[in-house]
Each structure stands twice: as structure tokens, then as C-alpha cells.
């Protein structure tokens, strides 16, 4: 197929463009007509009309090499990735008990205990590890039998019954261990003047995966210092929008969110903290306001 529907015979290349055209005369009126050949490449045979076609063995080897030609991964980076894989599999999956039936029996027993305790259960987070284990076990069964097989597996039924009967946990942490994403608002408190600029260094026990703007007039995403980031330090800074429609004043209470960062945290990682902060009001004067990190609830 050349895109010309089989019309025309003589093929010519448009000078310098690389496009191939076929020309012909319409049978009805003899008018000259042309059509651009749309290249259609085949794996096994070179295309017609003098197009270059698939590469020879040497060129194919070269392209294969180019396809994987990238920078060499430093050992430190390699180690970090293996650590991430280890964390993802080592803690999350290899500790799953091989005895699914044992867990199912434990889940049924848990169901009985929950039913017995009823509303007297005052510390629901205490059962969170059991919940996490149950979820992991369902995942393992699904991986073993596939989604359809798992749906009809009596072990899953027993586990789900236990889960449904459990009281909700208001401050439950993510059920499955391993990396998680958290949003932290950078909030300036105690402002008595309009904020002209801010700069903060924060200790983050994981990589920052997103930087978002705050409330007006700090709607633009905060700037970060890439040189510091390369050395593991996180330094953020921001200015109010350059052309506000009207001068802004600090809101009642002197509190304004200047940015939000999204952080990937490993299971059990400590909370990010503000290490250093500088807040400037107009004319470069300092202010007694403070900046704090506030973890935003996902719901």
C-alpha cells in the first residue's frame, strides 16, 4: 500500500523533502494529478519507490546499541534503587506467611473476638497490623489464583468477613507497608505584614516528588534550589504573584499557605521538619512570623 490507491506509475521525489510522489493523468479529462506516497514499512521487505527500507544487520546492531546507550548509573544510585526494591519486596511480600489457611483461621478468630468486644473496642489501631496482614494475604491469594479464582476462594471470603466486621480506624495508617506519598503544606503563621518573600530548608526523609503552589498570592509553585537538591538538601523559596490586582494584606489570624510539597516516604520514615526559615516583609525587614509543616489528610 502506498496511500495512492494504486494510481499512477512514475514516482518522483520532491526535491530535498524526502517525500515521494506518484503522478498520472485522469482518464476522464486527461488532467495531471499527483499523490504523495505515504511510507509503509514492512519488517521483511524493503518498500518500493527507492525508500530506504529497513536497516541492514550492521545498522540494526548500531541502532540496538544506541537504544540502550545512556549514562552509566553511579553505584550510589544503583544501591538506592536496590534498597527500594528490597523495601518493596522484602518487607511487604516476603514476610507474608506461607500458610494462607493459618491466616484465614486467624481472621475468623479475629472476627469472633471483634464480635465479642463490640463497642467496647476503644483502641482500634491496635488491630491495624492484623488488617494489613489480611490484606496482604488476599493479595497473595489473588496473585496465586488470579482475580476470578480469588473471588471464589473460601479463604478470601473468611478474611473479608473479618474485615467487614472490624470497627473503622479513624487514625489508621496505610494498610500496606512500603513507600507512601504524603502532602505537606508549608504554612506561615503570625503574619502582621504582607509577606514579600520566603525561603525555607526542610529535612525530608524521602524524595520530593511534587511542589505545588499555595494560597493566593502564592499560587505559583515554589522554587527550589537544584544545586542544594543534588547534595540532598531541600531548599524552597517563593514570592507572591508579581502583578496582584490589589495589594494583599495578611488574612485574619496571619496564616497563609505558601506552598505544598508531595513527599515519598518509606514505611516508618520520620516526619519532615523545617530546618531553617527566612521570611521577609516589604523593604527587606524581618518578621516574627513562623513557618510550619502541616501534613494534609488525604481525605
Amino acid at each position, binding site marked *: 500500500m502506498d496511500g495512492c490507491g494504486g494510481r499512477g506509475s512514475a514516482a518522483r521525489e520532491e526535491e*530535498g*523533502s*524526502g*517525500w515521494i510522489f506518484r503522478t498520472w493523468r485522469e482518464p476522464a479529462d486527461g488532467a495531471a494529478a499527483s499523490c504523495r506516497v*505515504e*511510507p*509503509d*514499512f514492512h*519488517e521483511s521487505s524493503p518498500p518500493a519507490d527507492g*525508500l*530506504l*527500507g*529497513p*536497516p*541492514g*544487520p*550492521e*545498522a*540494526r546492531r*548500531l*541502532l*540496538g*546499541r*544506541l*537504544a540502550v*546507550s*545512556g*549514562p552509566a*548509573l*553511579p553505584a550510589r*544510585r544503583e544501591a*538506592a*534503587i*536496590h534498597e*527500594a*526494591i*528490597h523495601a*518493596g*519486596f*522484602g518487607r511487604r*511480600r*516476603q514476610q*507474608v506467611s506461607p500458610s494462607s489457611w493459618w491466616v484465614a483461621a486467624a481472621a475468623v478468630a479475629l472476627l469472633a473476638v471483634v464480635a465479642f468486644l463490640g463497642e467496647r473496642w476503644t483502641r482500634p489501631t491496635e488491630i491495624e497490623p492484623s488488617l494489613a496482614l489480611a490484606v496482604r494475604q488476599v*493479595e*497473595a491469594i*489473588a*496473585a*496465586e489464583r488470579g482475580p476470578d479464582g480469588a473471588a471464589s476462594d473460601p479463604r478470601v471470603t473468611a478474611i473479608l468477613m473479618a474485615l467487614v466486621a472490624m470497627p473503622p480506624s479513624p487514625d489508621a495508617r496505610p494498610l500496606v507497608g512500603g*513507600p507512601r506519598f504524603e502532602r505537606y503544606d508549608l504554612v506561615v503563621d503570625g503574619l502582621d505584614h504582607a509577606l514579600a518573600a520566603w525561603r525555607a530548608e526542610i529535612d525530608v526523609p524521602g*524524595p520530593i*516528588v*511534587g*511542589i505545588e503552589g499555595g494560597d493566593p498570592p502564592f499560587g505559583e*509553585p515554589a*522554587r*527550589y*534550589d*537544584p544545586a542544594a537538591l*543534588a547534595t540532598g538538601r531541600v531548599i524552597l523559596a517563593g514570592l507572591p504573584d508579581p502583578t496582584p490586582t490589589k495589594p494583599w494584606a495578611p488574612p485574619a489570624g496571619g496564616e497563609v499557605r505558601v506552598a505544598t510539597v508531595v513527599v*515519598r516516604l518509606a514505611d516508618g520514615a520520620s516526619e519532615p521538619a523545617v530546618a531553617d526559615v527566612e521570611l521577609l516583609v516589604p523593604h527587606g525587614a524581618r518578621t516574627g512570623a513562623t513557618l510550619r509543616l502541616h501534613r494534609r489528610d488525604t481525605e
Partner: protein
Amino acid sequence: MDERDRPTDADAEPSDGSLVARANRGDRAAFEQLYGRYRDWILAVAYRVTEDRDLAFDVLQEVVVYWLGKFPGFVLAGKVKTFLVPVVRHTALEHLRRRRRGQGLELPEALPDDRPVSLAGVADLESAVARLPPGQREVLLLHFGDGLALAEVAVALEIPLGTVKSRLGLALAALRSDGRLRRAWLGGS
């Protein structure tokens, strides 16, 4: 059977599919093997997009964590590369955007992909490929270098099949504009 499909009949190399199945069952070594198999390739794709070593490293790390998060339950519908290409590209572009926002810089303007480029005078095929516009180079390498079919390239790059064909046509037209490149391409003397 094509080598790129990682056949199961090889003595030492398990197929991607069997590694995925083992990783779905919690076998970390299987995922490590998948990672080792595609690490350099992910880095290469990331580097082609970002043209920055450190950003490419960041992209690799993020892609591996993203991929890791798919297990258990990861379904390999086609080739691993078909799954990974859009992930790597999106992650790389997001890193570029983030850097642009952080530094207040504009991204460098890439050569438009829909225009022919003359590579006349470039005797070396490798240099010629490197000088192609990014979109054309990506299609060329994915198709002939990585062995993805044109339809798979279209899926991986999330562009229409016609665009894949036209970009490939333009890339090949540029390569054949020089007789020496043409010989190098076809493997002639």
C-alpha cells in the same frame, strides 16, 4: 523467534512473562532480574528525553518505584517496553517541567518533528541518528533498535500510527539523503 521477545526456550534467560508471574508471587529476585534487564534501556530513553544525566537517574529511580508498586497484580498485556515507554517519557517530561518551574527557565525548543531534516554531510550514521529531531529519532530507535512494531510504537508514544509512519519516513529520508549514510544503513560497501 525474535530475540527481543525474550523466548522461554533459552536455557538461561527466563521470559519477561515468567519473571512477571514470579514477581507477582512475591519473588524479589525475579523483579531484580527484570530491573537488570531493562535498567540501561530505561536510562537511555530517559536520557534521550531529558538530555541530563542526573534527571535521567531520577527518572529511572521513579520509574522503578512506580513499576514496583504495580506488584502484585501487574498484568503484562504486551511487551515490557510497550508498558515502560510511556511511563518513562511521562516521568521524564514531568521532571523537565519541574526543573523549568524551579529554575524559571524555558525548555529548549526542539526541532519540529513534522519537517524533513537534511543530514547531508554527516558521514557517520550514529551522528546522523543523533542529529535527527527527537520525535523522529525516538520512532527510529524504538522500531529498528528496540524491535517494537509500528503499532506498538504508536501505543508506546501515544501518537497515531500515521504519525509514527510519517516520522519514520522523514527519518529514513534524511538518512538516505547522503550516499555514505545509505550504504551504512543498508550494510553495503
